[in-house]
């Protein structure tokens, strides 16, 4: 069973095709780096994968189910540009809320566990409004991993985070990959992304420029990809 199947996805803004016939598959356990310049369509594609937006043509299947399906949404986790956390609620309340929305059985226990893992258990009753930037980011990471998603979608995860949150996130991603979860992350921070990635998908002006395994050459020289697959 494919973890993710992107089947000929188009996205139009009016008559302008922002995505053109994107198709690739992701097998369980793979870590895909979704690469491309600014405005190439990475965020548009990720939003479609996360079920926040609908493809104009084509289909996206998550574990062979439509992205709008309950089971598919429950299996996905997303870290987007915003932290997705409520300022007026406490850390614990935030996590309990999302545990409830994801229908976790032991909501309190899961929430506490993730507060401990992200080092926020001592401030669990503090309002997020009063948190430092780093603490908010770690809480955002906890929220995304709370329901142990089998497919994690990350949109530019390393740009907004501070060092401690990056280390935390990288550790959690490695752990969940080793447990057989799947990761798709868009980024233009090539080095961090390519270290984790097993596969790459390169989008150039809304079109699929390259898809395949991550090779040693890419690691050695991150600009290799762009040079080889036709982007100036």
């Amino acid at each position: 069973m494919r973890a993710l199947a992107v089947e000929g996805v188009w996205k139009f803004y009016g008559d302008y095709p922002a995505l053109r016939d994107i198709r690739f598959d992701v097998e369980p356990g793979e870590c895909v780096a979704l690469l491309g310049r600014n405005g190439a369509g990475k965020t548009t594609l990720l939003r479609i994968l996360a079920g926040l937006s609908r493809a104009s043509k084509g289909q996206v299947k998550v574990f062979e189910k439509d992205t709008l399906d309950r089971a598919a949404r429950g299996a996905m986790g997303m870290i987007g540009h915003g932290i997705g956390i409520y300022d007026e609620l406490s850390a614990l309340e935030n996590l309990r809320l999302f545990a409830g929305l994801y229908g976790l059985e032991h909501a309190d226990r899961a929430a506490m566990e993730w507060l401990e893992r992200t080092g926020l258990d001592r401030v669990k009753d503090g309002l997020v409004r009063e948190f430092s930037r780093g603490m908010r980011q770690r809480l955002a990471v906890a929220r995304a991993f709370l329901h142990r998603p089998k497919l994690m979608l990350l949109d530019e995860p390393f740009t907004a985070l501070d060092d401690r949150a990056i280390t935390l996130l990288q550790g959690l991603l490695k752990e969940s990959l080793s447990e057989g979860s799947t990761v798709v992350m868009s980024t233009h921070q090539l080095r961090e992304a390519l270290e984790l990635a097993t596969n790459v998908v390169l989008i150039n002006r809304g079109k699929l420029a390259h898809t395949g395994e991550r090779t040693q050459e890419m690691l050695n020289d991150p600009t290799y990809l762009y040079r080889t697959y036709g982007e100036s």
Partner: protein
Amino acid sequence: MLFLRQVATVAAKDLRSELRTKEALNASLSFALVILLLFSFAFDPTSEMTREISGGLLWLVFAFAGALILNRSFARELENDCLDALIASPVPAPALFLGKVAANYLLLLGIEIVCLPVFGVFYNVRWAQQPLWLLLVLVLASWGIAVVGTVFSALTVNLRLRELMLPMLVYPMLIPCLMAAMQLTTPLLAGQPVEGDLLAWLRMLVGFDIIFTALAVMLIDTVLIG
């Protein structure tokens, strides 16, 4: 059952964060009081006229104050991109929507319950002569306001000039609902029961609520997921 639990979760979340900051609630309540005060300059508050237009007055206050609550409803989700996190969760859009409607509804009812005695004192109206009928009208009309208002709150959330857009679009849409409420409230405040012609207005309110709840639930998926 699961659906209802999700509705309750979303509603509880909204109520909790609103009650904690009281941003919209305070603004809305003080706005309501200001309007009540301003009306006293528009006409002589002691005269017989108060009795004749009391229903209209009251519902104008509720509609104006309600717009502030409704504006915040989805705008609150914009900070930190919380709306994306909510939509990406397995909660279906109708449950998300109804949860928000429920929260707005309770806040609206709260404001109305506070405004009624104030109105009674300022304008010398004995408002509690038909408490059950009045409660029924409040319950039905506020639901209409909450449902239509929340749809437009969602519709306008990403737009430029959101705060201006919402009242502009919502008030014409709410005219039948507000008119029915006004027509029912005036005689109720004068102590008359609902009978005869007035029942037709009650039916109109029920019809409005049912049709727009159904439409909103059908359309909300389209509104929230592009």
